[in-house]
């Protein structure tokens, strides 16, 4: 039976504290909870392998990078198996004027995985541009332009007057 490494307690604490937010990020990128679970499980295994070599202050960024890049790999694999890059259908008002529930996830599916990650990191994880650039290995300018482009595309699908009103009613 092997010894338990001294650092394993810190890993366990990190897992408990961070698995939920990382699941949310992965779901925003992959659009599927089972796929998100696979990605985060894989990422936590990789995190365990490298844990002793991670600088103490960099664990969160490292974990986020691992999850995001695992998601990219899974998205590439999915892309080879099924075509997923078609634009989502636009939602319209229902028969009684009620706006049907808008599906942001379907709208996100129309974006490339990297653009979905930019949206998730900026607007779900609330990271500043510099941190998103670090996670995605992109220049800050590229993060800004990808954010703007992603929002433009999402706006085309989501931000109809009916949609905004619907979102207000859902609050």
């Amino acid at each position, binding site marked *: 039976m092997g010894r338990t490494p001294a650092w*394993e307690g810190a890993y366990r604490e990190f897992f408990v504290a961070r698995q939920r937010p990382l699941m949310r990020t992965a779901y925003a990128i992959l659009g599927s*909870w089972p796929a998100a679970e696979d990605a985060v499980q894989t990422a936590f295994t990789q995190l365990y*392998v490298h844990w*002793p070599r991670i600088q103490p202050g960099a664990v969160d960024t490292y974990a986020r990078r691992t999850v995001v890049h695992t998601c990219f790999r899974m998205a590439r694999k999915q892309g080879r198996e099924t075509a997923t890059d078609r634009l989502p259908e636009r939602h319209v008002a229902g028969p009684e004027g009620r706006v049907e529930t808008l599906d942001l996830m379907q709208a996100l599916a129309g974006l490339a995985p990297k653009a979905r990650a930019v949206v998730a990191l900026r607007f779900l994880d609330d990271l500043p541009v510099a941190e998103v650039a670090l996670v995605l*290995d992109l220049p800050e300018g590229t993060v800004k332009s990808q954010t703007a482009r992603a929002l433009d595309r999402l706006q085309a699908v989501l931000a109809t007057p009916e949609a*905004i009103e619907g979102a207000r009613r859902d609050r």
Partner: protein
Amino acid sequence: MTVEQLVRDQLERATREVVGGPDLATSIRAGRRRRATRVGVAAAAVAVLGLGAVGARALGGDDAPAVAHDARVADGPAPAAPAPGAPVDFVPGTDVDDTMAAVVAEHLPTIPAPDDVYPSDGKTAGPLPDSEFARAQDWQAAYTTDTGGFLVMMGLPEELGGWRCRDCDAHQVSSGTLYHETYSTDDGRTWWFGTYFVGDDGHFVNAFESVQAPDQQSAARQRQLSDSDVEGLVEDQRLSFSRP
């Protein structure tokens, strides 16, 4: 409401109820196994090459030691971990690691970035300390694939000293000899597909793809890499180095 607010609001609601999640015990078990396997792969490679590593093939099992080569970093400042998906300088002060990773990526674009690239020698199962790269007899690049692992090892002539694989399928190529070998761990659960190149000058490049499978046929079906792709890699003349 701006589109930015709308996206924030809807992302928050779409992800509020998290369904499922990773399992801590599974992560730790798989992580321990993979840490042990990394050492096991390196040691198995050394054992296959007749360099005397003891018990190497038994290291990949569930009862393998939980602490592998990286135990040393618990006693001092940890080197930076490789960033996933990004070009990483695994070993500062040399570009052997970068070259090795780049050549592998060129030949095998379907595998992910390496988990680690490190110097080693014939007596060490796993990495030498990064700072001792100048005395490396071989360099190794370790990868995690969807079905198991992949290890590439390139070494100096002095490490093998004219070694020839007697139990392998062998054939001559333009600048050396190419060998193929398939073997399993003692419990028969992990299969190794070895492709070895020994140059006429004695330098060598070996690649090992490992697959978790109950038998050799299943393992062969699950392989991610073809023999021809790996042959092209191990014969690549850029996979060599000299002492600084």
